[in-house]
Every structure is written in structure tokens, then in C-alpha cells.
């Protein structure tokens, strides 16, 4: 399996003598959203950490991770172009809303272009005019949207979602879910969602139950 999208090949993940995943295979085409379901503590977050490249040294990891045919498993995290959203928005508390967004824009965009990108992202999230605000002064829903816009501004080639709807109340949850899925689909980003709640998964997209550490395989192209 290779080609466009996010591909995990023969992924094995273990800590001490405990195997979390064995020879796990997964392929996500651009614009598709795969949900991996599992109880807390099964290693979902570790799988995402392995993909973003920030796995703790205590874990053992083998296998290949490819994005659009490019092997990223040996790259440092900052060169993988994998965006991630956690259940906390994790807006940098010392930066303004606008600076949080600007931090994500690749450095080859300069001057006016950067400012325009920030303005457009804010407008897209229906938060125009909030660039100079303190992130702490925003509502939970607003912060969540900024957090997604920040990730998208870094032009990721894959998007990982680590239970990002968990801390929002029911109404906000629905709104933010469609906000995220709509943009990931529109931008054609392969997206991997891990959650313990089936309700989080988008309709019509594959749901994968966290495999026993035996061999597991799914191909959604």
C-alpha cells in the first residue's frame, strides 16, 4: 500500500513487555476521515505520538509511516507536516490570537501575505477582528476553532484528532465536529480521529475498533 494519503505500514508499538499494536496497517486517502475507537489507556494517544514523532523514548516502535508516498517515520517532528488537535485547545497562552495563528504559517510567506492569511483564517472561523485578543478571553468554542485554524495554517499533509470534541458541551460539539470535518474534507487532508465515543465519527466514513495486538488491516481507498 502506498500512494496518496496517510499510510501506516506494519506498525508495531510496545512499551516494556506490553504490545499495544502489532503489524498494524492503515491507509487513509486525501479527504477521508478514519475513526479508531478504543477504550482509554489502549494506546490511541501513543499511536498519534508515533505519527507526529514525539513518542517517549520508553516506547518501542517499528514500521513505516508515509504521507503521499513520502516516508516520514525517520523525520524529526517539525518536518513531518502532520497537524494534531488535542481535547484541549492548547492555544499558546502568552501569544495573542493572531500571533497564535501567525506562529503556524510557514516562514516563506512574508509580510502582507502572512497578515492576510491570519485575517482570512479568522474570517473563515467567523472570528474576524479578534486578532489582538488574549486567548484566555475567548469562549471554549471560539478557542477550539482558532486551534483548528492554527493547525490548518501550517499546511499539514495529514491531520490527527485526539478526542478533540471531548471537552465541549453537546451543542458546541456538533458545531465544532462539522467545522473540523468540513474543512479537512474541503482541503483534502487525510484525517485520523481517535476517540472512545462512536458519536464523534463522521457519517459514512469508516470506523475501526482498536485492534487486539494481533495483525489488523484496513484499506479505505
Amino acid at each position: 500500500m502506498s500512494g496518496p494519503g496517510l499510510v501506516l505500514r506494519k506498525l508495531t508499538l510496545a512499551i516494556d513487555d506490553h504490545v499495544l499494536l502489532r503489524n498494524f496497517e492503515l491507509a487513509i486517502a486525501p479527504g477521508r476521515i478514519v475513526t479508531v475507537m478504543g477504550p482509554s489507556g489502549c494506546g490511541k494517544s501513543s499511536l498519534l505520538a508515533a505519527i507526529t514523532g514525539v513518542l517517549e523514548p520508553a516506547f518501542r516502535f517499528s514500521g513505516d509511516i508515509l504521507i503521499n508516498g513520502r516516508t516520514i517515520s525517520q523525520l524529526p517532528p517539525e518536518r513531518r507536516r502532520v497537524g494534531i488537535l488535542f481535547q484541549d485547545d492548547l492555544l499558546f497562552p502568552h501569544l495573542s490570537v493572531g500571533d497564535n495563528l501567525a506562529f503556524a504559517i510557514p516562514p516563506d510567506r512574508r509580510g502582507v501575505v502572512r497578515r492576510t492569511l491570519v485575517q482570512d483564517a479568522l474570517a473563515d472561523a467567523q472570528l474576524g477582528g479578534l486578532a489582538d485578543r488574549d486567548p484566555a478571553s475567548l469562549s471554549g468554542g471560539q478557542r477550539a476553532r482558532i486551534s483548528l485554524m492554527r493547525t490548518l495554517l501550517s499546511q499539514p499533509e495529514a491531520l490527527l484528532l485526539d478526542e478533540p470534541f471531548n471537552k465541549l458541551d453537546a451543542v458546541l460539539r456538533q458545531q465544532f465536529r462539522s467545522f473540523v470535518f468540513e474543512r479537512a474534507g474541503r482541503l483534502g487532508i487525510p484525517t485520523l480521529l481517535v476517540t472512545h465515543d462512536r458519536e464523534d465519527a463522521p457519517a459514512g466514513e469508516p470506523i475501526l475498533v482498536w485492534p487486539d495486538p494481533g495483525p489488523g488491516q484496513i484499506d479505505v481507498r
Partner: protein
Amino acid sequence: MICWFPRLTAFLIVAPILMGFVGTLLPAFGYLPAIGGTTLTLAPWGALFATPGLDAAMFLSLWIGTATTLFTFTLVIFFSASWSGTRLGGAITRFLSPLVSVPPVAMAAGIAFLLGPSGWIFRALSPWATGFTAPPDFLLPQDRWGFSMIGGLMVKEVPFLFLMTLAAVGQEETKRAFQVGRSLGYGRMIAWIKIVLPAIYPQIRWPLYALLAYSASVVDVAMILGPTTPPPLSALVTRWFFDPDLSLRFVAAAAALLQSILVLSLILVWYAGERMVALFAGAWLRRGGRGAGGAIAAALAAGGMMAAIAVAVFGAGAMILWSVSTTWRFPNLTPTKLTLGNWAAGGAMLGNAIANTVLVAGASTSIALLLAIGLLEHAARRGGASSRGLAFFIYLPLLVPQIGFLFGIQMLLIRLGFDGTWVALLWTHLLYVLPYVILALAGPYRRLDPRYAQIALSLGASQARALWRIKLPILLRPVLVAAALGFSVSAGQYLPTLFAGAGRISTLITESVGLATSGDRRLLGVATVWQLVLPLLAFTIAAFIPAIVFRHRRALRPL
């Protein structure tokens, strides 16, 4: 690049201690060519053991070290056990914390003013209760048994150990285990001692060893509050090192080595004591006794804490009054005439020393901060694997008695023509500043949500950019507090300044010890107030910068 920090720091810390130790070991066996010792001999040891009063001096060191540590430990444990989480506990914590940054010499001088024959306590009692119309001829505060010195050290060390305990107790599991214990019918104090103490002891063990080593070998406080005939061994050693009779250097080196052996044995005995307690405590815990009362112990512990605070506050108050007084007759409680003249005279005399203090403290703190951040960042990237290494950097300098290797360093510096230089002074200060900077920064650094850095990396920022643009700004407040603590530690260093400065670079502390032992109270008052002002200033700046920088950032403002 970050992977070089542990090695660089290890070199900066181990090299001087090791070389200093060798430089003390050789003269202790008669080898010091610079003053004519070219053969290895046991003569220095013979001379040392023939010194009258040596056994008393050794005993004093052991006694003061043991008593200070034991009393401090007991007070802190009983106070934490009976008052943690209460309103009174919170209030006392707020008053206690600033005491950590007060230089020991300032504290000692303040206490000497309180306890001395013409101190506030005797003034308050005279003449109506004591009948004295002139200062009595007592040997206070330098009493034979060193009680004033033990008290003085405790005022300084109780806050330190208490804060270390508080940090250890902060973990959620410990708090929950404590609540479970309470629900099983154990009273507050007994639940704390039976459940919390065993859990946190491993974390306060090394601070306790450091306290043991420090109080058994401290020199500056001993010179002000300690007994004099004989003084504790460390003060005796210092006296010999600076004696005009050069042949005493050999005896001093042997005595310095003896001091190190004493400290090591004290730590070993304490460790054996730990094992013994652990052996018997199991049965005691299994018996399930719920303990009785404890109200008296609780009251005593609170009283002890308040006494420590009161001593510090009144000591500082007495110093401030002396610094502006012209005449202050016994037994008046306040000076009869006030003046700012002492401050003018003090400024003229101390100006240079104050500038030196600020320079050394500022420079050594900056270096220590850089090293500490490098070490912590290295540990964070390795996934906390090197926290053992961190403990080594923190506690090695604090466990080795200063007197045991500073002489060796000085000999080496003289040999290299380096003594009395700023490099030498900065390096020796760094040995003591770095541990406290790491201690202060390690907790906040570890508690910082690692996902901030992960997010920054996933957005394409390099590790360095994530550190400088995200982590350090978020940690600005603890970084500055660590810096302020490092600054005050450096400003309080006596022996390192004395040896590495070689008399050519004097700081506020060396001047203050000189004034304290020679007896000009007005100038000593001025010098002591300066000693209090400098750390206060550092902590004030550390509080103001984040308040200004983050005035529009609610999440980073203090509650």
C-alpha cells in the same frame, strides 16, 4: 547541541570539587611545595590531634549538625502533619517562603542583635525583670552548647525543608492516599505521619543530607553565632587557613579533610537511622493505632514556626533600627537619636562591595540559568530519563563541605595565577547557585504540558524555536523566580568569596562578616539591610516583569 549540557555541567561542577579535594588531600599529608612541603608525611595529622580542644570542636560540629537537622526535621514534619491544608498553615507558609532567600549571615546578625547581652530581648526585660542597667556579661549569643547557632540555622533551614516537603506533598496520589487514611479513622497528624511521610521521605532525603552537611560544616554563621572557645571545627579550620603562620596550612588541610570525614559519617549514621526506623515502622503501621490527641504537638509545631518567623522579623527590625541610629543606650527599646549618616558612611565603605555582589550574583545566575534550562530541556527531550543525573548536579555541591575543597581550589588557583580573578569567583559561586536554580525550575518545567511543545513542532517549529518562543515564555515567571533565588544564593556566599576572591574581591557578605566580628553595629546594620534589600529587589523584579509582560494574558497572571 543540547546533548552537551550534561557533560559541560558535569565538568563545571565535578572538576573544581575533585581538584579542590586533591588540593586539600596533598597538603594534609605534608605536600605543598609553595610553602616548602615536599615530602609526604603524617606530621600534619599529629599536629592536628595534638591541638587542645580539638575533640570539643569536633563534638560541636557533630552536635550542631545533628541537632539542627533533627530539630528542623521534627518541626517541619509535625507542622506539615498538623497544619497542612488549614488556614493557619497557609498563612504561615506565606510568611515562611521569603525567608529562604535571606542570606544566612544577615539572619545570624539579626539573631545576634536579638539575643546579645545588649539585644532587644534583654532590653525588653531590663531593668524591671533582670535588674540590669548595663548589658550583662553573658556569653550569649555565642553560648558554649551552640544553642543560638542551632536556632539561627533553624530559622534559615526550616523554611527550606518545609518548601521541599510542600513540593513533595503536592502530588495528587499522596493527597488522595491521605484522604483515604482520614476516612479509615486516622486523625490528621497520625494519617500524615503514617501515610504521607513514608511516601514523600525519598524526596526529602537528599535535602536532609544537604542540611546535615551544611549545618555541620557552616563557617559564616558559626563565626557570628557559634561558640568561640573552642569554635566548631569548620570555624577553627578557617581560622588556621588564614593564619599568618603558614605552617598552619598543613594542619588546616588535615582538619578540612577531617571535617569531610565527619560530615560523611553523619550522613551514614543518619542513613542507618532511616533503615532502623523503616525496620520498626512496619510493625507500628500494621498495628493500626489511630494515635491519641496530638493537640499539644500541633500547638508546639505552630508555635515553633511562628517563633522562626518572629525571630526573622524582629532580627530584621533591629538591624534596620541600628542602621539609622546614632545612640541607642541600654536598656532603651528604641534608639534615642536617628540619622541617615550611617547610610552615607556605609555607602562610601560598602559601595564597591555591593557592586561586586550584584555583578557576581548576576553573572553566576545567568550562567546557572542557561545550564539549568539546557539540562532540563535535555531531560525533557529524553523523556525524563536523566532526572537521576539532575539530582547529582543538585546535590553533589551541597553535600561536600565547602571547607573540604575550597582551600584546594585556592591553592590551585594560586598556582595558575588565577586566584582573586572574576572567573575563579564566578565558577565557585556557580557551584552553589546552580543547584538552587535547578531545584526551583525543575518542578515547573516538568509540570508544563508537553503538548505545547508537541503542537509547536507539529506546526513546523524547530526544537529550538519551540523552546525559545513557546516553552520559555510560558515559563517566564518560574524562570525569573529561579533567577531571583540564584541571585540571593550567590549574594549570600561567604566562604567561596573568601577563598576564590583571595581578599582582592570583596562582597557584601565578606564585609558583613568582618563587621559582625569586629562589632560596629551601625555599619553592620547598614550592611545587613543591604543583604536583605538585594534579594528582595531580585524577587520584586521577578514578580513585576511577568505582571507587566503578561498584563493582557489572563492565563499567565497569578491568581
